[in-house]
């Protein structure tokens, strides 16, 4: 196949994904400040407004923010086309997501109807515009690239999760409507944490793990079937919950098997790395997958413990917070921070390398103007990040049961997200300096030596 006729747009401009990556850690910092401010009161009940504010700071402010940025970066690299809509639309998606997340946090804390209304409108505009941008690609990209398939599934999951979220927000924003939103909370949470998070991690892992860790490719067939099964199981669970028909146990078992299969399969692929060079980002991935595994086991112990005296675990606020932390901080945030250690340096490196070829004199400059990935985020920085992340994760889990650790946990979470922000910002500043230096050299075509 000659590549001459291909119209490729595979190297996304740095400013598009990076604005999401640089904003997200600041929401993590805000979440940590909330833990510090409320102290042990943060672990009251998951229905308390402050817990809801904390959860959404992490899930929307951090997780959704990074994941939208990552899709802006991944899709062009994988399918050769930018997400349509242009820079203006990206700016609107980003701005409204920031504003919506801040409004939602403030709305939960202050309980002002107007803030709920602002959050409702901002988040709806942001997610709707992003979904609208994705839609043409999902309809027209008829090739069967795994990532296109998984993004189609994710698109549906996102619509259900955010749709339910916005529906519940409607109840807060317009109390006169008298919407009984509580029965949708668990459904919204399962679609968000199992559907959106797990399938997104599946999509990201299927590209990042073989690319950066040189493992065998994920089986396209396995992931296609698995993602579809997870969505179908979630859909049936939601219908059962609403109709009160009780085959929940079978569906729970099915979902556990699907999630366990993904975890074990991915861990096994990671173990089959061809070059087992030490890489701290592999550890982030392992923590993420082990967290999913532990949450499945823990969840079953809770279910069985509620019906049996032999198992001491019972459903309680503490156990709900533990599950939430395992899935949000352990599964999702570990994978996201690990992923950022790779994809941000890759994006910056690719842009510098491309630019330097257009300014060929810059290639002979010393010290070199094209940074390698390890100079953009160093191994040492990633190791510090891992230690901070693991410490904060464990301290958060401990603080649910020994509340005097809450303040310390909040402090380490604060350092963890601050470190992430500083690392990414430093990488971007380095990139900007080198970019500026390359642009000082004249733009011209590379000259090749031709034999006369």
């Amino acid at each position, binding site marked *: 196949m000659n590549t001459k006729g291909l119209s490729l747009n595979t190297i996304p401009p740095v400013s598009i994904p990076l604005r999401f990556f640089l904003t997200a850690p600041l929401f993590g910092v805000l979440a940590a400040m909330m833990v510090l401010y409320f102290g042990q009161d943060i672990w009251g009940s998951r229905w308390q407004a402050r817990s809801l504010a904390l959860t959404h700071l992490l899930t929307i402010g951090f997780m959704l923010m990074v994941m939208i940025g990552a899709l802006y970066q991944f899709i062009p690299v994988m399918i050769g086309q930018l997400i349509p809509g242009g820079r203006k639309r990206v700016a609107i998606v980003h701005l409204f997501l920031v504003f919506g997340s801040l409004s939602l946090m403030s709305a939960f804390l202050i309980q002002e109807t107007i803030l709920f209304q602002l959050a409702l409108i901002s988040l709806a505009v942001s997610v709707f515009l992003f979904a609208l941008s994705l839609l043409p690609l999902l309809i027209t990209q008829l090739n069967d690239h795994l990532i296109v398939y998984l993004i189609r599934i994710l698109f549906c999951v996102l619509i259900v999760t955010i749709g339910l979220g916005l529906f519940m927000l409607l109840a807060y924003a317009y109390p006169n409507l008298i919407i009984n939103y509580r029965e949708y909370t668990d459904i919204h949470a399962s679609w968000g944490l199992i559907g959106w998070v797990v399938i997104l991690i599946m999509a990201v892992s299927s590209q990042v793990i*073989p*690319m*950066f860790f040189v493992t065998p490719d994920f089986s396209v067939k396995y992931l296609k079937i698995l993602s579809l099964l997870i969505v179908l199981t979630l859909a049936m669970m939601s219908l059962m919950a609403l109709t009160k028909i009780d085959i929940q146990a079978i569906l729970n078992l099915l979902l556990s098997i699907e999630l366990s299969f993904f975890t074990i399969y991915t861990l096994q692929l990671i173990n089959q790395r061809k070059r087992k060079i030490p890489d701290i980002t592999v550890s982030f991935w392992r923590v993420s997958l082990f967290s999913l595994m532990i949450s499945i086991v823990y969840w079953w112990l809770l279910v069985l413990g509620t019906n049996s005296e032999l198992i001491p675990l019972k459903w309680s606020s503490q156990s709900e917070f533990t599950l939430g932390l395992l899935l949000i901080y352990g599964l999702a945030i570990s994978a996201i921070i690990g992923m950022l250690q790779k994809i941000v340096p890759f994006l910056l490196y690719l842009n510098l*390398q491309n630019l330097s*070829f257009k300014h060929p004199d810059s290639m002979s400059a010393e010290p070199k103007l094209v940074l390698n990935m390890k100079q953009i985020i160093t191994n040492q920085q990633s190791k510090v990040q891992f230690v901070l992340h693991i410490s904060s994760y464990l301290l958060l889990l401990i603080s649910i049961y020994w509340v005097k650790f809450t303040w310390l946990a909040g402090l380490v979470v604060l350092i963890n997200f601050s470190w992430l922000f500083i690392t990414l910002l430093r990488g971007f500043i380095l990139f900007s300096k080198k970019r500026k230096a390359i642009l000082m050299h004249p733009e011209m075509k590379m000259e090749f030596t031709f034999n006369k």
Partner: protein
Amino acid sequence: MEKQIKELFVDVSELEAPKPFEEVIQLLKQVKSGEYIRMRHRKKPLPLFQFLQENGFDSCILESASSGNAVFWEIIIWIKDDKPVHDYCTRTF
């Protein structure tokens, strides 16, 4: 004439990103007229194709021999204005 055409081969199929890109960049800096690059890769490197198009190269991609479930790709790269090599590559690959 064609005897003078030289192949520069690089196997990046066991390297993690962005090493395949770095390896081929080194070759692109050295490649002269009468030469083409044959790169063995385990992925279709789409960003590389954009890079090549924007920087005066032409390329084509072939499915190479598979091993087990893994499919390998061969990417042939030459200087766009190097007519003899262009003719040779389009005829051969």
